[in-house]
């Protein structure tokens, strides 16, 4: 079992299990190309703060069913995403580099249940998911840096012992 896992644990395999980083562009980019992504990040960070999605109180309000705000926020974000991805597929729109848009299919594993539950526990207690962790530190809630470092540690611990965890 262990060896079988290791044999299939090729670079691509690891990445496709994670599916988030498989979508990489095959083109080589100059370093300043990355500045565009930083600008996207700045925009996203501003929206996270101004919508108060970074607020511990808003997250508590969501989990205590006190307001529609967070549900509306996530729901309308997903709806916007669904419509635009549908349009991209329907019209066969290509990326700026002329590449075909590829979306990696995810496969189910038990990690989505167990890991998802653990993530939810952390989300409610810190009042933040990874995006807001970064935005909060920038907005001056600097103790959140501790939570971010701890999240990096949590990621490392998962990577170190993932072969022993049920998937």
């Amino acid at each position, binding site marked *: 079992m262990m060896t079988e896992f290791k044999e299939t644990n090729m*670079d691509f395999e690891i990445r496709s299990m994670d599916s*988030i*980083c498989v979508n*990489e562009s095959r083109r080589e*980019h100059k370093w300043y*190309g*990355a500045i565009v992504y930083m*600008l*996207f*990040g*700045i*925009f996203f*960070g*501003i*929206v996270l703060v*101004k*919508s*108060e*999605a970074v607020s*511990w*109180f808003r997250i508590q309000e*969501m*989990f*205590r069913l*006190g*307001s*529609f705000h967070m549900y509306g*926020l996530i*729901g309308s974000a997903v709806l*916007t*995403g669904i419509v*635009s991805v549908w349009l991209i597929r329907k019209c066969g729109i290509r990326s700026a580099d002329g*590449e075909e848009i590829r979306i990696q299919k995810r496969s*189910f*594993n038990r990690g*989505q*249940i167990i890991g*998802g*539950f*653990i*993530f*939810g*526990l952390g989300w*409610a207690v810190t009042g933040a998911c*990874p*995006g807001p*962790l*970064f*935005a909060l530190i*920038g907005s*001056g*809630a600097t*103790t959140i840096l501790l*939570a971010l*470092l*701890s*999240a990096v*540690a*949590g990621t490392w611990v*998962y990577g170190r012992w993932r072969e022993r965890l049920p998937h």
Partner: protein
Amino acid sequence: MIEFLSQPWPWYISGPLIGIMVPALLLVGNKAFGISSSLRHICAACLPANIPFFKYDWKKERWNLFFVMGILLGGVVSVALLPPVVHLQIDPKVAADLYVQGITNQEGLVPEQLFGWQHLFSLRNLLMLVGGGFMIGFGSRYAGGCTGGHAIFGLSTLQLPSLIATCCFMIGGFAMTHLVLPYILSL
């Protein structure tokens, strides 16, 4: 305009602005929206320790690190350059419940009593920051994504595993808020 910027933005404006990140990243560079993978790239860059999960060319994914650096800067911009948010108005019943549970100061984006530097060295607050952060990092990688990669990107691309993950995020959040957090807050 200034008045609008100083108000908290309503969900029906900020939600679509978040959702638009998905096609924006796809169209600009064929990138899948996601945040928590940046934590993995940090591990791969700083402490790969010969672990297969961290042995990959993280430099190919540096766009993601620029993206999260931008999110941090976005936090700086929103407090330094944009007018301050007037005041957070959360549901009065939730506010009252939190008050009873000890969160008497409800100003700001995070409760000062939990996450202020002068209150840092208490068992409760360290547990919440360090323990909570750990579960975010461990759980999101175990699940293969966070609210960004699963709830926003995964649902936008109609992937069932992401729906399952998102439901489990919510179940975990409800369990923490109603079953565990009351005890943690009373520490």
